[in-house]
């Protein structure tokens, strides 16, 4: 007669022969925001383990960069994080300018700041739409798309494209603002905070939303740093770090804004961070429009952009998803010898197993939504 007392899972395993089930989540799944695949072990609905598999959208962008001259690579950067093309452009041209020693005129710097902040708004709007629809609230999707459309209209008027903008060149801006663009965007950013209030009215205080997000997908600051998580994910974990403040580029040292930080490390706080960032972005755009200097928009640059014989740079900007950086090695020709992209989504999704382990499948969906990944960028 044994007095062995079975506890926890062992007990059930012996009594009922409970088995873990393997569940293949994606790559075709509405909540994976693209072609992310997760191999999961689940016990009932509880996730025992999770193994992300990526690469379904790999297009060899880094190889393409090596085969094209500097200026031809800008459109390729559009296609990595395709919902935030402007910040991708900005990071890339910033790296090239650093490598070549180009100095950007102030008006171009301001225009770049405006564009990247508008892009942040549009990217966060898309994130909110998909995040909310993952958690089951379908209406914010349409409200955010209504506003996103206005941002895209602004982009269209400025550079002729709505999504794949190709709106920056090494050394400056290809186009000046059109007549009336500044007024239009000022009208948009004036009306935008009220719209954010509207989304918040639907979600922030809603008890179901709170239940679904508070305490879900915990990401302690140590773990976040350990995994190289950046952007709103890091700020939702209580670490106040934003490249726009830490290493100001373009016109960010000439405008005033706050970097929202929340300390609960959960999905709800990351949601709050992004909501506040949208308001801050609107205010940055407003300030830039007020301060917009006159003058040239393109620096004096050689007709052929040639990298120095030796030299390599890393330049990164604060994209909507986190730190997007470019590491470029020059070899004296007009092509980058090696161009590496530091994709924020790759690092943010890498931490996913840590965040979902022990949660439910419903939590997994919320957590994927909160990481705000774009698979075009993860896989490049």
């Amino acid at each position, binding site marked *: 007669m044994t007095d062995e007392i079975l506890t926890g899972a062992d007990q059930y395993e012996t009594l009922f022969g409970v088995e873990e089930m393997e569940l293949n989540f994606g790559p075709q799944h509405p909540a994976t925001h693209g072609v992310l695949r997760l191999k999961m072990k689940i016990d009932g609905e509880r996730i025992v383990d999770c193994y992300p598999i*990526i*690469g379904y959208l*790999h297009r*060899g962008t*880094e*190889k*393409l960069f*090596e*085969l*094209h*001259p500097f200026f031809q690579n800008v459109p390729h950067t559009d296609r990595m994080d395709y919902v935030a093309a402007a910040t991708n452009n900005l990071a890339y041209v910033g790296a090239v300018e*650093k*490598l*070549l*020693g*180009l*100095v*950007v*005129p102030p008006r171009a710097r301001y225009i770049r700041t405006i564009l990247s902040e508008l892009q942040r708004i549009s990217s966060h709007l898309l994130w909110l739409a998909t995040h909310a629809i993952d958690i089951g609230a379908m209406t914010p999707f349409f409200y955010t798309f209504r506003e996103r459309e206005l941002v895209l209209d602004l982009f269209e008027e400025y550079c002729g494209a709505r999504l794949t903008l190709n709106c920056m060149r090494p*050394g*400056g801006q290809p186009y000046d603002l059109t007549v009336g663009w500044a007024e239009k965007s000022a009208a948009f950013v004036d009306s935008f905070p009220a719209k954010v209030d509207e989304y918040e009215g639907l979600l922030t205080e809603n008890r179901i939303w709170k239940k679904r997000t508070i305490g879900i997908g915990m990401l302690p600051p140590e*773990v976040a*740093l*350990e*995994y*190289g*998580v*950046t952007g709103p994910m890091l700020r939702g974990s209580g*670490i106040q*770090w934003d490249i726009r403040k*830490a*290493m100001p580029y373009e016109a960010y040292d000439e405008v005033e804004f706050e970097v929202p930080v929340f300390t609960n490390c959960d999905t709800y706080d990351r949601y709050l961070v992004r909501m506040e960032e949208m308001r801050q972005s609107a205010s940055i755009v407003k300030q830039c429009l007020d301060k917009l200097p006159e003058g*040239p928009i393109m*620096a*004096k*640059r*050689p*007709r*052929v952009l040639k990298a*120095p014989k*030796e*030299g*390599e*740079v*890393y330049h*990164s900007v604060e994209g909507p998803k986190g*730190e997007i*950086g470019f*590491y470029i*090695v020059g070899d004296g020709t*007009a092509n980058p*010898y*090696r161009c*590496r992209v*530091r994709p924020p989504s*790759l*690092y943010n999704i*890498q931490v996913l197993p840590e965040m979902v382990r022990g949660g439910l499948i419903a939590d997994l969906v919320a957590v994927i939504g909160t990481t705000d990944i774009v698979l075009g960028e993860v*896989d*490049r």
Partner: protein
Amino acid sequence: MSDSENGKPENGTPEPEEPQTEAKAAADEAKAKAAAAAKAKAQQDDAEKEPWEKDPVVPELAEADGDPLVKELVSEYGESIQSAQSFAGDLVLEVGLSDIRDVCRSLKERHGYTLLVDICGAHFPQREPEQLEVIYIFYSLEQNRRVRLKVRVSEGVEVPSLTPVYAGANWPEREVYDMFGIRFSQHPDMTRILLWEGFNGHPLLKEFPLEGIDTGAAIYPEYYEESAGPVAGTGTGWKPPAPPAPGEPDGGDAGESETP
């Protein structure tokens, strides 16, 4: 640009060609004179010009032995820190292969470089014998500074993995392996990440052609023998179906398409 060719320009040479005009020679002469005059004037005005109106000053590599971080690391690891340079404000350290994990651990624990920004590889076929390079980028939140470490590796040599130090090194190291074939020792899961398991070759090596090589062989053994997949240089191997219009043998390539 001759008309015997397809008219399709090569892409490697992007120098914008002067439009060929008949009056080019005459124009050249006039231009040269004007340029000389302009140059003299330009030097005069240069002082008053804004920085973006001047010719760009290309940054140069500089020795950075005097940097406090470098000094400390050298005192700790001595010979392992093979060189320290800075370019455009970025600090680059070259570290010996065997010590890289210790140096990184020291960076993280003693110098506050807690954020692993990126790990990537590079391939320099002209260098012998260490053709490959692994680049690590770290960031310190307190000092607000980035530092780059480089390790030179020859083919087939394993690099100590950083996963015991930075958990986030897992995927980037897998990507380096995937793209360059550099293996990392003590890595928990040294498999391909972006490409599929049966992929032959490592696409970011310089000798890897853009069209791709032999990509299907290992996963379609019933179609291809080992390393006998689609051949490089023949394009994707997929031809468009012949268009219904008669008198146009290779569809899609020529421009005589018809509008309905």
